[in-house]
């Protein structure tokens, strides 16, 4: 006979701490109070606009308004979570946040939620998502186990979702104008000419051991052909590196090869440590005569077109199967 077991449809924590109990009742009251306050003090759209314009006109905000990285041979760029938070503040009566709903150390993941809430219109958007406790490294995905790193990893993933939630809530035109002002601020910032800016960034990157060729490869064209948008991109990347959001090695790869790299002459008398294999049939590869010119075509029996015995020469194995299936 089957045992009948009690079934709890929703998993509840085994123990509710005092802080949690207080938070539960506080949250319920806060929801009510926020909505009431928003109704009492509705947003003044003109004032929101003014605040946004003022904020986006500062170089500090403008320089942190966009992110950019390289994927699929193109720059991927967009507004940052910093801009999202600032716009939420300017727009007013917007609450937002992220919460870790549960953490599973065995499966190595956290279930999280990002949300944004317009308390005045009562419009709420949220997204629940899983964050694996792992990090992409050059040697594959590495599990993250220490608490601080898990926290940081969760916070990073949540920030991106939060950004989307806030932008989903804000009017499109409000965000579009903010981005436009930020771009103008970046371009007009200071009194440097285009050439001066290019020189400034190339020098700044050079101080971080990033060569002009690497920067040019990142942008996709030589420095003298850079347009205003390219310089903006550089500015964004430079700030991201400066703020520690990105590592130089992740942004700029090795320098692309030039023709001169290929034709560089050999250093006389130096060689690599190559040892002989010493197999009994190793002699099948014939030593080259000193007078040989390139390309060396081994003795080619039968090249005269005369039917000949193939018994000459060392017997060899069937031609190899290599990986040059490319092409034909």
């Amino acid at each position: 006979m089957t045992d009948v077991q009690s079934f709890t449809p929703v998993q509840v924590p085994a123990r509710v701490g005092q802080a949690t109990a207080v938070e539960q009742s506080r949250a319920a009251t806060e929801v009510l109070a926020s909505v009431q306050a928003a109704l009492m003090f509705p947003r003044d759209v003109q004032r929101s606009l003014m605040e946004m314009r003022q904020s986006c006109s500062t170089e500090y905000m403008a320089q942190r308004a966009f992110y950019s990285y390289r994927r699929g041979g193109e720059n991927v760029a967009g507004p940052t979570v910093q801009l999202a938070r600032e716009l939420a503040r300017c727009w007013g009566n917007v609450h937002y946040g992220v919460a870790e709903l549960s953490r599973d150390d065995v499966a190595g993941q956290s279930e999280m939620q990002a949300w944004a809430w317009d308390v005045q219109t009562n419009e709420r958007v949220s997204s629940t998502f899983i964050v694996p406790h792992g990090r992409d490294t050059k040697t594959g995905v590495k599990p993250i186990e220490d608490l601080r790193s898990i926290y940081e990893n969760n916070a990073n993933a949540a920030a991106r979702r939060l950004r989307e939630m806030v932008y989903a809530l804000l009017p499109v035109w409000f965000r579009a104008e903010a981005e436009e002002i930020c771009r103008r601020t970046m371009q007009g910032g200071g009194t440097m000419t285009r050439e001066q800016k290019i020189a400034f960034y190339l020098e700044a990157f050079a101080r971080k051991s990033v060569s002009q060729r690497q920067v040019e490869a990142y942008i996709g064209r030589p420095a003298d052909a850079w347009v205003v948008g390219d310089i903006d991109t550089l500015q964004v990347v430079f700030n991201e590196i400066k703020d520690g959001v990105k590592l130089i090695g992740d942004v700029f790869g090795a320098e692309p090869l030039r023709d001169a790299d290929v034709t560089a002459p050999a250093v006389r008398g130096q060689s690599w440590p190559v040892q002989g294999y010493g197999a009994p049939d190793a002699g099948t590869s014939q030593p080259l005569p000193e007078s040989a010119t390139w390309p060396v075509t081994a003795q080619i029996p039968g090249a005269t077109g005369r039917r000949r015995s193939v018994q000459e020469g060392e017997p060899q194995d069937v031609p190899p199967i290599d990986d040059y299936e490319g092409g034909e």
Partner: protein
Amino acid sequence: MITEPGLYADVPESVYHRDPVDGGSLSSTGARRILDTCPAKFRWEQDNGRVSTPAMEFGTAAHTIVLGTGKPIHVMSEGNQDFRKTDAQIERDEAMAGGYIVLKQAEYDRVMGMADALRRHPLAGSLFTRQLHEGGRLIDSGGMAEVTGVWQDDVTGAWCRLRLDWLRPPTDGPFLLPDYKTTTDASLSAVEKTIANYGYHRQGEFYERGVRALLPGEKPQAVFVFQETTAPYLVTVVGVSAEMRRAATRMNRRAINLYAECVRSGEWPDYNNGSIYTAEMPVWLAKIEGE
């Protein structure tokens, strides 16, 4: 059998492909096959070898002549240019049994034309330069064809192997690892597609990884020399972007980890680990049949 890490000359190609490393090793082709197919197929190909196609045979012949590895080539005699004839078949089979690479006269002429065009290409010519002359006297061999490398992965301890088409001597410039590829189309867009389709960026990174392990402190960079197999035998010399290199690094790491895990467990799973799979609708079909 090779039991120590190192660079080895004169490892016969057939021995390399059968795996000269005691206890087994992962090659660059293997690293692509184990991820792109599955461990079960990879294992079968390791044990049984892959089927050689005429394109591969021609590629091998081009390698032999262009790189001058000294393998013998047999050109079919004048009356035996058609393999449907019994005489031609006998001549071909005899030659193949003797270990020769068999080419028809037209193919041989093509390969020679390719070698000539490659030598005259300003970049490719110097990549594969064999000898360094001074005042008509040979002072440096200039490089070695077909060098085998064997190393142990520092993360998993798995044994890996590589075979460089050409090991250049130390130069004033970056340490380049050239690899020669024959192709029907060496245009830039075709070459990009070919690299992506066959995972040549992954091959390049695998070689760089191996050479770094064997020659600590060096920063080798793979570079591909694509040559068309029809006149005028155009050549394109190609390096890979930082982004492709990063992708290749990730894929090769996954491949080595997977290989090491299979070796450790002795299990070589198939495509879906023996489980049932639910087919999803591909994007292109959804466009036609979707709601």
